[in-house]
């Protein structure tokens, strides 16, 4: 997930600095870059091994219980996800569980570290929290139309998150990923004994399993859009900035 290091005070940014057409800015700190690439690996393994686990019983239910004689809200026949989408590529529930439950640690521990540090170093409050200005419908609509026309922020604005980015990063980091972890834990019979509120909160283990799958689908949607935006915004510059931290700032329109 992207993290911008913003050295420029937004108010100062309004004053037109003399922008050099080839200005390089330091945009992502090292921990962010490591976390990003670790997640790129982990989330793919979690999704693909998760699809294999889903293949073992491709039916989803609401409530405390749910099995073959109960009424699913989503149901597939056979093993719906093909080999190219699963880990391993041939049906093996035990192996998929080994992958899933091992990589879960690589997802959970760094996520917890990130959540704690991003509040402590004020990254969350400073860079991710939408401002009152940004959440006004007019502003959001403006950003949507700009994106739809593929007109992305340039100059100093490219160093800050726009409101659509903020919504999606906050949604992924503070909502989707924690929900994935909590619904995953709610499916554990031992954790349910230790933390009975898990099952109370999600209204049943099968509901938790359904929410787990819905959140996974939303994460996949995020990844697809995220990759699409990287391609549209200039993949070389974007990927380099996530590897080296350095980002070539696109000049303001009319400057170049």
């Amino acid at each position, binding site marked *: 997930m992207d993290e911008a290091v913003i050295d420029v005070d937004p108010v100062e940014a309004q004053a037109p600095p003399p922008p050099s057409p080839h200005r390089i800015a330091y945009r992502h700190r090292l921990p962010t870059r490591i976390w990003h690439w670790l997640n790129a690996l982990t989330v*793919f*393994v979690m999704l*693909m091994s998760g699809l294999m*686990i*889903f293949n*073992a*019983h491709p*039916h989803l239910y609401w409530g*405390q*219980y*749910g*099995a*073959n*004689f*109960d009424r699913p809200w989503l149901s597939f026949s056979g093993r719906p996800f093909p*080999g*190219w*989408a699963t*880990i*391993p*590529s*041939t049906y093996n*529930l*035990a*192996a998929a*569980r*080994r*992958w899933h*439950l*091992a990589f*879960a*640690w690589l997802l959970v521990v760094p996520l917890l570290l990130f959540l704690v540090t991003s509040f402590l170093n004020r990254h969350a409050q400073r860079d991710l929290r939408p401002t009152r200005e940004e959440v006004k419908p007019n502003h959001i609509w403006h950003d949507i139309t700009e994106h739809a026309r593929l007109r992305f922020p340039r100059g100093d604005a490219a160093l800050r998150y726009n409101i659509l980015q903020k919504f999606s990063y906050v949604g992924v980091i503070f909502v989707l990923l924690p929900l994935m972890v909590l619904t995953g*834990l709610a*499916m*554990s*019979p*031992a*954790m*349910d*004994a*230790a*933390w*009975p509120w898990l*099952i109370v909160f999600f209204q049943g*283990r*099968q509901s938790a*399993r359904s929410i787990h799958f819905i959140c996974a689908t939303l994460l996949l949607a995020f990844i697809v859009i995220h990759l699409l935006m990287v391609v549209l915004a200039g993949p070389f510059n974007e990927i380099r900035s996530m590897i080296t931290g350095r980002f070539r700032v696109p000049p303001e329109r009319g400057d170049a």
Partner: protein
Amino acid sequence: MINRRRFIATGASGLMLGGCDRLNNSARFRNVLRSAETLTMNTQRLIVPRDALAHEFGEADLSPVFRSNGTAMPDTSEYAQQLKENFLNWRLAVDGLVARPLSIPLGVLRSIPHRVQITRHDCVEGWSAIGKWHGLELSRILDAAALSTRAKYIVFHCADRFGDKPYYESIDLVDAFHPQTIIAWGMNGQLLTVPHGAPLRLRVERQLGYKSAKYVQRIQAVESLAHIYGGKGGYWEDNADYEWYAGI
């Protein structure tokens, strides 16, 4: 264009998958993955209080139909004979590291005061069913047999076989002495049916369904699982690499 893109996407995921499959075939990598099971078990044992109970539901929460899984009918002639006799001569043997080995007739097990619990059964495949179980706490059986201090695991030998391999399972003493761990003889107010493990089955409520072995004939207390069948503590553990600790 679409086709080319799809071709590239399939090719790329094919490369990645080929890598995952190769890793999955590497014994060393599988051992790395397996070490996560130990980490998960130790963490859960730290977080989950020893006697924390699995949630017990009410009658209204029972699954209308509780599906069975695994063996539906053990196919040995011995079991067929027992079934014909209505399990009149079924006995539960308790041996291994115990001071007083036992052989308890089924009738005795069914006649002493027992525990009733309505719990959720979670299959490793993902489905859940809620059932009401009637049975005797395993801890009382182990106390009656005077478990040795050397014993670390309790092994359950079952009457059903997969091919030529007998089904068996094992748990450690934390689960063995848990108040909800019972040797059940009844389900939903009736005697166990054959698909659900008649005449005796184990219930381990804080682990996945495959730990709750059916058709239990013999309980053996041991110090190590290494020399029992495949050495991994259970039929599925030995033959399909399922986790021995199935708390998640």
